[in-house]
Every structure is written in C-alpha cells, then in structure tokens.
C-alpha cells in the first residue's frame, strides 16, 4: 500500500533521514520504534508532505506522492496524528472534529462519524463545546485520534499516541488502535517509544537508528530479539 524508497530528508543542512526504506501492506499494523532523535517523526512528516524528502521516492498504491503538497496527500486517505497532538486550542471539541473532516462534503456521513467517535470516547461528547486547549492530555490524545478518523483514512499514521498518558489510558488507546485496524480495515503505521505495547498489537515492526532503518521483522520476532530487548524493551 505504502512504499518508502531510500528517502533522505533535511532540515536546512541537517540531514535527519539518511536512507529510509519501508513497506506497509494493506490491513497491517506496522510499528516504527527507535530512540529519541532517531528520525521517526521526520519519517511521518516526510510521508505526509510536511517535510518532503530531498531524495528518494514514496509510492502510495503504486503512485508517487513525494512531490505532492500536504493537502493533496491527505485527500488520498493518508492521515497523521502528530506527536504532541496538535489540537486547535481555541476551537471546541466539535470544531476540531469538523476540521478533521475538512476535505469531506457529505454532511450526513460526518455527523454519523462524530457520533461514532463519541461512542468510542464518551468523554469527548461531554466536552463537546469545550475549547480543545483546555482538555487534559489524555482527552487531547483521544480528540487527536478521533479527528484523524473523521477524515476516514485508509492509512493512519500515529506518532507516539501513548506519550505522557497514564497506564490505564494507554491501554485503552492501544485497544482502540487495534479496533480501528480490525473493524474498519484501516492500515496503521504506529511510531512508539512504548515498544513493548506497540509490538504486541503490531504485525510487523521496524527499528530506526540515526536516520536509518536497522532492523525489520515480524513483531513477535522483534519482541524476542535480544538487541531489541536490551535497547528498547528495558530488559
């Protein structure tokens, strides 16, 4: 479904991605783990066209997308929940959700999808008219995921959705991610520091170090890989 081929991304003259290649198949949950500063967020931003790669190519359903603008890439069905949630602070919960559906025209469908995410996260319905910036961290994360779902993505990119959340909420978020994948057949690309949890719900995983992919395997193999255990699972 998504194929990233030898991309190199720069911030000014600083090279953040040296040579990244990865493949995501339809229906999968694929996780990307790595230390701070490895280039995980940059990989997602490169896919989304916010920091386009200087070299290499990205194919989505066989078509090159690395030269497209960010808004064009969203319209193809690739949506990201960025690191730090990026809730529109002065917009209400409802308005934030509606922004997620910015490119959609079907009012009835949007309404239905809002009801759906309210069913998933009842707390959001209670806070529907509250400004996004005043929500708690966990609520903001739920809102950020819900907002991405409002675009009806076929490929959902999640950047550290568990960051800074209480263990119980983390569990809930991972369950939801799994459900999103299995029930609505959404392909998920999950960046996580919480490697243990991520590998438990993922089918496959990539390990990234210093702007390059160093390891790729089935999730259960990575979970039992000695190097991965030592470096990312704290065992």
């Amino acid at each position, binding site marked *: 479904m998504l194929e990233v081929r030898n991309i190199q991304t720069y911030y000014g003259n600083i090279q953040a991605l040296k040579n990244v290649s990865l493949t995501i198949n339809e229906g999968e949950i694929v996780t990307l783990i790595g230390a701070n500063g490895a280039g995980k967020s940059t990989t997602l931003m490169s896919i989304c066209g916010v920091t386009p790669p200087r070299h290499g190519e990205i194919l989505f359903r066989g078509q090159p997308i690395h030269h497209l603008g960010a808004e064009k890439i*969203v319209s193809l069905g690739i*949506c990201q929940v960025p690191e*730090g949630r990026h809730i529109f602070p002065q*917009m209400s919960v409802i308005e934030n959700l509606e922004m997620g559906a*910015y490119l959609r025209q079907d009012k009835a469908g949007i309404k239905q999808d809002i009801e759906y995410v309210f069913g998933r996260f009842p707390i959001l319905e209670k806070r529907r008219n509250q400004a996004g910036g005043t929500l708690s961290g966990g609520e903001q994360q739920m809102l950020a995921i819900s907002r991405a779902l409002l*675009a009806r993505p076929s490929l959902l990119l999640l950047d550290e959705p568990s960051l800074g959340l209480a263990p119980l909420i983390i569990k809930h978020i991972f369950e939801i991610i799994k459900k999103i994948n299995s029930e609505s057949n959404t392909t998920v690309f999950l960046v996580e520091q919480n490697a243990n949890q991520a590998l438990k719900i993922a089918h496959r995983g990539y390990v990234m170090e210093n702007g390059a992919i160093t390891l790729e395997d089935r999730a259960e193999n990575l979970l039992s890989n000695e190097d991965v255990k030592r470096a990312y699972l704290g065992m």
Partner: protein
Amino acid sequence: MDFQYLFELLCGGVVKGSIYALIALGYTMVYGIIQLINFAHGEIYMIGAFVAFIVAGVLTLTGYSGLGILPLAALIAVIYAAAYGYTLEKIAYRPLRNAPRLSPLISAIGASIFLMNYVQLVQTPDFLPFPELVPDFEFLGDLTQFMSSVDVVILAVTTVTMIALTVLIKYTRIGKAMRATQQDMVMARLVGVNVDRVISATFIIGSVLAAIGGVLIASRTGQINSAIGFMAGIKAFTAAVLGGIGNIPGAVLGGLVLGVAETFGAGYISSAYEDVFAFGLLVLILILRPAGLLGKAVKQKV
C-alpha cells in the same frame, strides 16, 4: 461638566475609531497567520481611496448623483485593492516564506515605499479634493449636532462589515481554515487545508476592509493624496497592537480606544497633540500590558 461636548467628542472618537479598527483588522489577521507586519497595508488603503476618487470623478461626469456613486465607487475600489493585496503577497512575501523573519519585514517596507511612490508618479503628489458623495440626511434631525451624515454612513458600514467578517470567520469553510491555520499551521496542513490559499484569502479580506476604510475616510476628510496611507497605516497598526496583535476582537477594541483617546485628547487638551495622544497611549499599553488589551501572554500546552 459639559455633557453635550463630551458626547460630541465620544461620537467623533467612535467614528474615527471604527475606521482605525477596519484597517487594523488587516494587520492583525495577516499577523495572526504568518506573523508578518504588512507595512504596505496602509498603501492598500490609500489605493482604495484613489480608485474610489477616480471612479467617482468619472461617474460624476456621466451625470450620476452622490449616493448612487458611493457604493459603485466603493465596490470598484474594493476589487482593485483586493487585487493589489493578493499580488503584493504573491510577489513580496510568498518567495520569502521560509526566509529569516527580518527578510519579509524589509520586503514589506520596500513594498510600502514602492506603492506610495508609484501612485505619486502615475497620479500626483498633491492633495486632491474628494467629492462629497453623502448628501445631508433629513431624518437625522437633532442628531446632526453630534454626527454628520457621513459619520452615520461610516458607522453603519463599519458595523455591517464587522458583522459580515465575524460570520465569515466563524461559520464559513474558508473562515474555519483561517482559524485553523492561525492556531496551528502544521496541523491545518495535515487535515488538508491549502495554507497558500488561506494566506491569499487573508490578504484579500484585509485589503477589502482597508479599501472600505479608505473610501470612508476620504469621504469624511474630503481630500486624499498618495501619502495618506502612511499615517493611517501607523495609526491602524497602533490600534492592532493596542488590542493585541493577532487578535481580531482586539483590533476592533484597539481601534475604538485609539479613536476615542485621540478625540478626547484633542478636544480637552489640544488638537495639536492628537498624534501624541495616540502614540503615548501605545507606549503606555506596551509598558503595562505588553500583549495588548485582549492579547494573551504566550502560553502553550504540549
């Protein structure tokens, strides 16, 4: 205390302030989205007044009467100003989008000087008499001791314009895209907002408001020249900072406060120091409330 005089000053201040507010909105909206002080905004206002002047002149020759001319002249002024604002952004600011922050600022000052001199060259540096387009309204009666017919038109037009702007920003698709871009540009792109288009729209809207302001002020003062954009621009910028730059209700409040302060200062102390009151007020606010009246101290939740 002379209440009649006080009320007279208050009315004058509100009328003046509402036009400052109209122009200040352009500064604040652009700043809110791309953090740029568009110094050429005052020149857009001046161009609006000039286009209205020319159109009114032509229409007068063809035998139209005053109140019929005003909307038509204003409409064409608005279209011209919108085109100038749009082009200005494309040529002077867009190529510098990723440059250090000082570069677009310098470009803005350059654009301002260019436009001022351009109008001076193709028109004239002299003051031109702006035609009286608003007839005396009979129905005003005793109200005329406080407000002229022009003032009434100004208040009506600014009120309607601001309500329209509020509706646009709150409810329309482009308005929502503007708010999203202003609050978080990266996220706006990630939900599919075409940020370039939003920035263009912001310049167009700001220019439309400035042109309306230009036509209204010209009708009130009765004369224009190529340099009027400078002072009006600085005053409106002051109003925007006063209210909290980037904050839309702040620009309106800042404009009104500035207009009233100026008029009171001029009316009770000395009209020679009108501008001193305006800028003195600015300095005072910047010392006491650096973020402006409605501006919030920068804080972010991560």
